[in-house]
């Protein structure tokens, strides 16, 4: 019954979405205020209905209702509760429903907090948002109905893929989707602006916080995915340039570019049509991501044919939204001419270069990702494009970005001088090169990867500090004066420094783990020990046990330093009987300077066990850096100018109190 109610709610949500897609759009075109206002309650109702459907599905998973096909296919009565809940989105149908749920959530937020938007703009934004929702609700209902029942329910379910039975499943997809779908806001605002033929500072001020929010979620979501893969896959890889990763990385790169170009629109009324294009592209790549993963087209052209109904439907949605928006763009963008004047050396130009590098980097990833598909379709060749290509073709752009970032981000608007921008940075440059040289002299081999990476990382982190220090006249003015300046510095400027430093921290981790990771693979018997990176590891024994829905062999490995035991690790090999699948649960002794990563391999013929040990220097800095970037975004978001949905009333009250702004 609850399942049918959920299905029914989803159908109603589609009807409301169709209404919301048409009525406010017509109202905005005709100037009928009451038609425009329909969008607001409709967005709320649409969200409530989708939420009801989602909760109904989750309920079916929680109570293990195996008469629902999706639950029977993807759950099991013995599965721990957290994976029953998270298992709701651990499959195609459920994850699409989560996708739409978040889409309607964003629509509802605009409806709720959009009181200070011009009514026409709000109506159009919500109408576009509802059009996307209608397309995907239609997709779910017609091709991927999560509520389909089985005539003959099985006694128990097929269980969830063991690799997904991890706390990561509870957090990683929702965050990633909040990011992907959050970019729909920028898209809807871009389409509305194209229809209106107007892009101004107020528009940018509205788009930026939404993009920033989506970008933060995407940053955290991708970092969590990388972190999850690192410990789950059993050998400490953290990024694979897998097509599925690439399609999440491309929207991230583009939304990063969008964040920066929207600043130029807001502050300088330039780069308008470019920003619109980026907004369209950023969400388009999110859609491409959904398409690629769902249709399996990248894996092989043939995988696409295995479920043509879904693939074709998604391709049509993709064509309509990407093609339609680009056509609208080609038609309307010429209206958006802006006349801002700035010199060749200025922050505007700096941000243009930032956008150039990010977009070209995105295109390289895109080309590498679709190349196998192109080669197979056009030339009938089967080729692969993997990590060695991406490392070589992509990295130079990020290196270039890191090199120019500190001085370009200090340049003033309109007209600047590189010499003046560099003046607070010469010391930073010298120190960064010195740190790189130190790293080079400490390492035994001659590879330049770690020294260059460390130089860049220090350049970014210290450069961000130097920017703030010069802004608050640290050590040049009295400490009290500096403190006053620091407190008065806009949050957006703090956010910028924090996010840029976070990039440096990530680059540091990436350079160190790539250059200096070491591994040891050996067969061990209980009692054996061996030295690794200044520690001694001793295998004390391997025990067999049974978990909720798996059986496990768990090793006990002692970590010794200078003869004293400083910890134990319990790497595990599990076997999930329902899915007939083994998994490796690595044991990691985490630290700021290194991770000691041990995975248990197969039993050997002589009664021993294969044991793999990896020392991953500074691994955690990769994800800490990503969190710092997201924290920078959050800091920026609290800037009073961009506060998400600071209700109009509060702004009015502040104005009434007559506190001078800025």
């Amino acid at each position, binding site marked *: 019954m609850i399942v049918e109610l959920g299905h029914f709610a989803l159908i109603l949500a589609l009807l409301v979405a169709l209404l919301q897609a048409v009525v406010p759009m017509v109202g905005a075109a005709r100037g009928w205020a009451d038609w425009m206002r329909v969008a607001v309650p409709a967005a709320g109702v649409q969200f409530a209905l989708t939420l009801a459907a989602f909760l109904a599905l989750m309920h079916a998973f929680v109570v293990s209702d195996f008469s629902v096909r999706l639950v029977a296919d993807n759950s099991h009565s013995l599965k721990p509760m957290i994976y029953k809940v998270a298992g709701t989105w*651990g*499959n195609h149908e459920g*994850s699409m429903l989560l996708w739409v749920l978040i889409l309607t959530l964003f629509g509802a937020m605009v409806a709720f907090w959009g009181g200070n938007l011009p009514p026409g703009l709000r109506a159009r934004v919500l109408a576009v948002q509802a059009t996307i929702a209608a397309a995907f609700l239609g997709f779910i209902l017609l091709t991927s109905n999560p509520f389909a029942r089985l005539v003959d329910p099985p006694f128990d379910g097929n269980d*969830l*893929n063991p*690799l*997904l039975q*991890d706390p*990561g*499943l509870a957090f*990683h*997809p929702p965050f*990633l*989707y909040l990011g992907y779908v959050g970019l729909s806001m920028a898209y809807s605002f871009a389409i509305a602006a194209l229809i209106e033929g107007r892009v101004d500072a107020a528009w940018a001020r509205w788009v930026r916080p939404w993009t920033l929010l989506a970008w933060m979620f995407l940053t955290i*979501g991708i970092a969590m*995915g*990388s972190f999850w893969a690192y410990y*789950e*896959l*059993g*050998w400490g890889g953290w*990024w694979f340039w*897998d097509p*599925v*990763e690439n399609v999440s990385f491309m929207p991230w790169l583009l939304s990063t570019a969008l964040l920066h170009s929207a600043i130029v629109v807001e502050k300088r009324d*330039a780069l308008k049509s470019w920003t619109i294009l980026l907004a369209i592209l950023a969400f388009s790549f999110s859609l491409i991501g959904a398409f690629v*993963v769902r249709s399996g087209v990248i894996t092989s052209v043939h*995988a696409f044919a295995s479920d043509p109904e879904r693939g074709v439907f998604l391709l049509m949605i993709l064509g309509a939204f990407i093609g339609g928006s680009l056509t609208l763009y080609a038609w309307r963008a010429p209206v958006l001419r*802006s*006349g801002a*004047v*700035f010199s060749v050396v200025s922050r*505007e130009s700096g941000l*243009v*270069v930032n*956008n150039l590098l990010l977009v*070209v*980097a995105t*295109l*390289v990833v895109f*080309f*590498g990702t679709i*190349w196998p598909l192109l080669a197979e379709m056009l030339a009938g*060749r*089967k*080729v*692969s*494009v*993997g*990590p*060695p*290509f991406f490392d070589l*073709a992509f990295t*130079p*752009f990020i290196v270039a970005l890191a090199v120019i970032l500190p001085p370009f981000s200090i340049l003033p608007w309109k007209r600047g001088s590189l010499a003046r921008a560099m003046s607070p940075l010469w010391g930073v440059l010298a120190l960064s090169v010195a740190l790189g040289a130190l790293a080079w002299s400490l390492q035994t081999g001659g590879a330049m990867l770690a020294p260059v990476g460390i130089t860049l990382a220090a350049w970014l982190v210290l450069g961000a500090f130097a920017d703030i220090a010069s802004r608050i006249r640290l050590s040049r003015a009295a400490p009290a004066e500096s403190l006053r300046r620091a407190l008065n510095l806009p949050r957006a400027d703090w956010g910028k420094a924090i996010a840029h430093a976070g990039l440096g921290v990530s680059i540091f981790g990436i350079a160190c783990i790539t250059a200096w990771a070491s591994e040891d*693979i050996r067969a061990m018997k209980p009692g054996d020990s061996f030295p690794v990176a200044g520690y001694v590891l001793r295998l004390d024994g391997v025990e067999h046990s049974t978990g909720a829905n798996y059986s496990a062999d768990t090793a006990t490995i002692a970590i010794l330093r200078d003869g004293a035991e400083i910890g134990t690790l319990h790497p595990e090999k599990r076997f999930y009987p329902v899915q007939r699948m*083994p998994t*490796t649960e690595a044991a990691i002794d985490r630290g700021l300077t290194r991770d000691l990563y041990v*995975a248990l391999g*197969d039993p050997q013929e002589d009664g021993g066990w294969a044991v793999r040990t990896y020392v991953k220097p500074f691994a955690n800095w990769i994800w800490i850096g990503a969190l710092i970037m997201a924290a920078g975004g959050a800091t920026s978001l609290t800037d009073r100018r961009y506060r998400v949905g600071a209700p109009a009333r509060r702004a009015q009250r502040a104005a009434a109190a007559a506190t001078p702004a800025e």
Partner: protein
Amino acid sequence: MPGPRAFALALALSVAPLAAPAVQPDEILTDPGLEARARAITAELRCVVCQAESIDDSNAEIARDLRLLVRERLTEGDSDAEVLAFVTDRYGEFVLFRPPFTWRNAVLWLSGPLFLLLGAGLAFAYVRRRSTAPAPPRPPLTPEERARLEALTNE
């Protein structure tokens, strides 16, 4: 989308188990120099039955056979290029994670530099135009804005 590879696999309903890391203790060569070369080569070769995995990471039986084959060739004195050619001759270009720089792959390899040149040209033209353009007149208010302005000033 989620859980990089893991989730992709689950969603694509692909079956390649990713569980244990690949290289077995008995495969490792005693000569550390040769072994290092073998690892570098196997990281560049794609497992033919898995999804986007190198034979170095793969658990599949055929990946193990290939790892042993690579080590065998190296022990017999083949150069890295000869080993790669040996494997490619048998399994095709598909197994190379780094597409060779041939004219057929030129578009792929040159895409980055070409886009950069093109983009840099466009960006420079744009910036030049902006730096020499005369300051624009302010855009006039829309009727909506004028109405709002009047409403505000009348308050």
